[in-house]
């Protein structure tokens, strides 16, 4: 079995799957229950985050190291978009770069009931966690 993992690596993968699942559930809650429409940049982050749930869950079930590689291919672009979005919201990038056309603004995605917590920060945290965990799994299982 060349593609399998041992227990510590499997647990890290499991944590990454949990992070993806929680982030996906949160995105659904904000969008479908609270009726917050996602902005363009949020959509790109959703595209990267949602497939991580089945990919990482199946990798956990099948104990398949390759799932980690597939996950990283999604998590890295997600991380980059979330980082870009965070810098934009933080005012560290010129607003002229904002790719938002119609629809909600990418600059005003805050949850006022968590003390002005910005959604891109949460997204960045989730993607960063997943990238770190998956990279650790790769390192631990390297031959």
């Amino acid at each position, binding site marked *: 079995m060349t593609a*399998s*993992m*041992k*227990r*510590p690596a*499997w647990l890290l993968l*499991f944590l990454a*799957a*949990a992070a993806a*699942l*929680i982030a996906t*559930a949160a995105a*659904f*809650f904000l969008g479908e*229950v*609270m*009726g917050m429409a996602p902005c363009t940049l949020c959509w790109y982050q959703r595209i990267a985050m949602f497939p991580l749930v089945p990919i990482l*869950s199946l990798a*956990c*079930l099948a*104990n398949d190291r390759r799932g980690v590689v597939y996950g990283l291919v999604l998590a890295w672009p997600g991380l980059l978009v979330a980082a870009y979005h965070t810098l934009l919201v933080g005012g560290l990038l010129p607003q002229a770069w904002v790719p938002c056309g119609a629809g909600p603004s990418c600059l005003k995605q805050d949850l006022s009931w968590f003390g002005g917590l910005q959604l891109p920060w949460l997204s960045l945290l989730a993607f960063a966690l997943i990238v770190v965990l998956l990279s650790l799994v790769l390192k631990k299982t390297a031959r």
Partner: protein
Amino acid sequence: MTLPKPNLRILAVLALLITVAAAFVLGVIAYQRHEQLAQIQQASAHAERLVRMHSPVAGPQDAPVTLVEFFDPACETCRAFYPILKDLMRAYPADLRLVIRYAPFHPGSDPVVRLLEAAKLQGKYWEVLEMVLAAQPLWADHGQPDLGKAYAAVAQTGLDMDRALADAASPGIESVLRQDIKDLNALGVNKTPTFFVNGRPLPRFGEEQLRSLVAEEIARSKR
């Protein structure tokens, strides 16, 4: 260290899925309860905003039960609920009155609302309302409303269109629209149709919920 057994792995992944799904469902319930309470509080704090002097009324003026609908002529759900409202009016001819308020959220709704108000001046309000709803699939394409088709349909009711379009631009009708928008913002109305029965919002949106809330208020008024 050895890897967890396949059974254990399945169990762990299942437990994760179930935990997150349960948290999600509990969150939905808590959030909806919170929103419902907020709307009840908002509606009772602004009860005077539910019915205005200018609001169109169907049914007896002094009915004990008032059903207020925040209405958008371009809204498909408003169209679907219209027969249900007529059915309720038939069921309680002496006890229920329907009050229409405007929530023109869709593009192209504003001019149609103005036209409805102008039709009221000619005594053709409900005829024109029914025509606007009947023709809705023709004119109310979201994003590309075709007012010409709405006007053509309305003309079939025999409304004096020249007079109606002139009236529609009058400051009186402008102020009706502005007042309704102020009121819907104060009441926290953000979807159409939004119903209030004697000031109470629906516990959850749906035909059954509307019918039972009306029945409940009718029964209460008989006590």
